[in-house]
Structure formats: C-alpha cells, structure tokens
C-alpha cells in the first residue's frame, strides 16, 4: 500500500492512527533534543563548536517543524500548537532526550556536561540515521519525501558527533573517564530511543517503517567499529530506566522544559507572534 496524499487517510483509519503515532515520536524527539541543544548556546567548549552546535540544533528544529507540519496536514492540529501546547503525558519523545544537560539553569550557573552532550547526540543521531534510511521507503509518501530532505543534513551531524566521540573517548585521563561515564548513563535509557512503542507492530504492518529489532541491529552494526576504535564494550541490550516515553511516560525534566519553551506562546496562544 502507498498513500500519496493526506486526504487518502480518511479511508484508512487504522493506518492513520499508526502514522500519527510515528510522526509524534519523530517530531517530539527532534523538538526536545533541539531545545536541549539550544540551552547550550554560548556555553560550548569553544566558539567554533558553539557555531557548529547551534547550526545542528537549527537543522534539528527544522526537522521537528517538518514532522509537525505533516501532522497539521493530516488535520491533527496546528504545528505550533502541537509543539507548544501538549502536556508531557501526550508527548512521545524518548526520555533520554528530555533529560537536562546537567546541573544548573541555562541562564544561571549552568554546569552542563559536554561528555553527556556528545554521547547523547551521537547515539541519537546514529539512531535517527537508521530510522531515516528506513523512512525513505515509507508507505506514506509525504513522510518518505521529508526523510530524503532530512537525510542530507544528517550526514554532517553524524560526522560532527562521531568526531567528538572518538577524539574525547580516545583522549586519556579525565576526558576518557567522563566519556565512559556518559556512555554508561546514556545506555541506561537508550532503549527508549530505539523502541517504536506500543503501536510499533502496526507501523511495521502498514509499511510505515521497518521493525524495531531490524533498526536496532542496524544501529549496533553501525556502532560496532566505532566502539572497537575507542576500545569500549558495546552492550546488546539497552535500558529504559526512567520509563518509555513512546507511551507517554516522562520525567519532571520534560514538564519544566515545556513550561520554558512555551512561556511566550502561552501568554496568548490565539494571537500571532
């Protein structure tokens, strides 16, 4: 089955339901991670990285906007409302991506963890790459088209984070210790990034995306040589320590983030800004 236009979805309510679920996962993942990235603005280890990182955050916010637009086109709601208005219980992002960058607030005494930033972004970006490659063949053509666009930018994001990951993990002393700790921390919740949630089987059945297990194996295959290069063990199972965000389970970090990112929007959600 191929669906080429949103209007065709009326005749396939179950397909639509699985598609909407998938789009929320994709949109919410990119949206919240881009938000976390934007909190780093002005705080990166050097000016050059500040520029590169904010460029990546911008791309990622752009990707979220494209997914929210697909949802708007299906009639789920306005893209801006979907991004700013939904409470955490309705969000589908992985819990790992909502976690704060480290102690402190983005304006006061931020003691953000660059090792965590590198590992989280790198592992997520590789998972996103695997997903996007699959989505290029999605049965929902508007999504397949968006995947092709996103794929072009992902190449650079992936290269960027891979370089950081290898350099810092292969450095000796403090840097390697910090990176090892960050890897352990990210793996505790990385299962939440790789899962497609309760409706995953339906997504696969409808040809929207390939199976969770297939995607996970591709991620492992892509990471294997990197882990060998930095001399670390790659586990075969990944945790979901703080819950499955695909099912609406989230932490207080997400509530706080939503309050901040929608602060101005909430002053008057009905007006133009």
């Amino acid at each position, binding site marked *: 089955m191929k669906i080429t236009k949103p209007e065709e979805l009326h005749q396939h309510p179950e397909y639509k339901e699985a598609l909407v679920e998938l789009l929320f996962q994709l949109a919410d993942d990119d949206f919240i991670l881009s938000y976390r990235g934007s909190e780093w603005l002005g705080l990166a280890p050097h000016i050059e990285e500040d520029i590169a990182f904010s460029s990546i955050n911008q791309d990622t916010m752009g990707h*979220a906007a494209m997914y929210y637009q697909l949802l708007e086109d299906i009639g789920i709601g306005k893209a801006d409302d979907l991004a700013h208005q939904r409470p955490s219980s309705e969000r589908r992002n992985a819990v790992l991506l909502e976690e704060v960058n480290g102690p402190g607030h983005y304006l006061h005494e931020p003691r953000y963890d660059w090792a965590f930033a590198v590992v989280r972004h790198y592992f997520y970006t590789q998972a996103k790459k695997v997903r996007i490659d699959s989505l290029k063949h999605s049965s929902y053509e508007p999504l397949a088209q968006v995947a092709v666009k996103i794929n072009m930018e992902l190449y650079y994001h992936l290269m960027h984070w891979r370089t950081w990951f290898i350099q*810092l993990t292969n450095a000796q002393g403090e840097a390697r210790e910090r990176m090892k700790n960050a890897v352990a921390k990210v793996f505790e919740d990385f299962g939440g990034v790789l899962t497609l949630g309760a409706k995953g089987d339906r997504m696969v059945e409808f040809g929207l995306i390939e199976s969770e297990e297939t995607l996970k194996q591709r991620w492992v295959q892509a990471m294997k040589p990197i882990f060998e290069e930095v001399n670390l063990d790659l586990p075969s199972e990944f945790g979901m320590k703080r819950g499955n965000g695909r099912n609406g389970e989230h932490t207080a970090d997400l509530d706080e983030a939503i309050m901040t990112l929608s602060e101005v929007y909430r002053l008057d959600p009905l007006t133009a800004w």
Partner: protein
Amino acid sequence: MPVVTSFRRLSEEEKYERFMQRIEAGEKIEADDWMPEDYRMTLIKLIAMHAISEIMGALPEKEWVPKAPSLRRKLGIMAKVQDEMGHGQLLLRVAEDLMAPLGKTREEIMQDLFKGDLKFHNVFHMPAPTWADAGLIGWLVDGAAIITQTNMLDASYGPYARALKRICAEEVFHAQHGESIILALAEGTKEQKEMLQDALNRWWEALLMFFGPASSETTGASKQDITIKYRIRTKTNEQLRQDFFTKYVPRILALGLKLPDETMHFDEKQGKWIYKQPDWNKFKEIIRNNGPKSKERLRLRELSYYHNAWVREALSGQSAAV
C-alpha cells in the same frame, strides 16, 4: 627583494610616512605589512572588543532562543544568534593575526575579558526581560550596529574591512528578523503593543549610548580621534547617532510607538536631531562592568570557559601527556 631591502633600511619616521601615504591613498594594510605600534594596538583593542561583543551579545538573546513563541520564530532566532557567534569567531581570527607578532593568543583575549581589561559593548550589559526585547535587539541594536560597522567598511586595515563586509550583509537579515518580530507585536493585541512600548522605553537610553560619547570630555576616554586619523573609520560618534535617528525615528513613529524622549525633534536650522542626553555617568559605570547585567553575563561566560577546560585540554593532547 630590492623593494623589501630598501624598505627595511628606512628609518622609523620614514616607514611611518610611507604607511600614512598608503592609507591616505586608500590602500589596504595587510596582516604582514609594517604598521605603527599604536595602529596595531588600536586595531587589536577595537577588533578584540568587537569580537567579544558579538559573543557576549549572544547572551541577552540566549534567554529567548528556547522561548521563542512559534516554530518559525524559534528557527529565526536560532539562526540569528548563530550568525552573531560566527561574527565573533571571524573577528577573533582577525585579532589573533594582529596579536601573533606579540606572542599573544585567544587565551589572552578571554583572560582580559574575565579580568575586566577587555570591554564588551555597553549595549550588551542591559537586561532583556521580555520577548519584545528580543525583537528590539534584532531591530534597533542590530540596526545601530549596521550604522557603526558601515562606517568602517572602508577601514584601512584590509582583513577587518573584509570581515565587516560579510558581517554587515548578515546584519541586514538580522534587522529584518527583528523588524518582523516587532511588526507582529505592533499589529497585535493591546498586551503585545504594551510589551513593545515597554521594551523601547527600556532600550532607548542604551541605544543613545550605543554610539559612545560625543567627545572624550564626556567620559575621559574615546578612541574616535585615533581611529579617524588612521582611516579606520570616517564619522564621529555624534554623526553616527544622528544617522541612526534619521533612519529609525520615522520608522519607530510609523509603528505607532512613542519616543521615550519628549524633547526629541529635528532642528531644520542646525540640520540635526535635538535630544535628551543619556546619563553618561551610567555609561561610565557600564563600561566598568557595573551595568545591570554585566556581572551575570561575564559569570556565564567564565563559568562555561572553566567548566569545559577538560575538553580543550583533551583536544590539545595535554592530558595524554600527563
């Protein structure tokens, strides 16, 4: 080779004379060219301050990047602030080349900033408590920056002039980005209009101070004489401020906003704007890092610099050696 040898044989006075002849003829000085010591020092100070101001200038807007009220605005302000950081980096590179013969690096620039020896622009010490402030910074602060930077587009120092050319082109987009936010507010609800007027009232004095005092008598120090002598800039601070009024006062009024200065008017006879002077004592305090947000923003930059020192060490291979 003969040219180089003969130039080396010249006395300092003769070199200076040649140098002045070159810049007065509109020639550009390049990084490796001979230049008078005070020319080099003035440029280092000016360009390092400009670079650091671009970087510190990201901080007032930083608050509003995650909070921008729509996806489009989020993307716009992210791009804008990224550009500012990019300008900072570009200018740091220009300053670094000038500092190299003195054996100094970017590390010294950062240390001078933290010590308070290197100032960042007075406008970036001010608070930006609402979304309208974010728009106003883009529109009027960047608008003011375009005016001062355009004034140096033909600077005698080639690398700086070229950097400014690129920066000015991007600043035009920033001013449009800011204007778009401002327009939405000006055409919006009563609350949005009030938010905008408040922001203008708040920023007015800072915008006047932006261009610096009219003469060194006001604050005891001004670089404008030496920068004009060396063809780095052409207009005085006051001329730039007048240009700003001429360009923006009509636009501010056209949006239905009130000027926070009731005495402000254009005097046809004198051919200039008459306005209430800002409190130059406040200005003096600001440039001593005693402005409303000076300490907080310096703290943010300093904390991130030291907190991430391990990353720079790892990259430089120092920790591998330990």
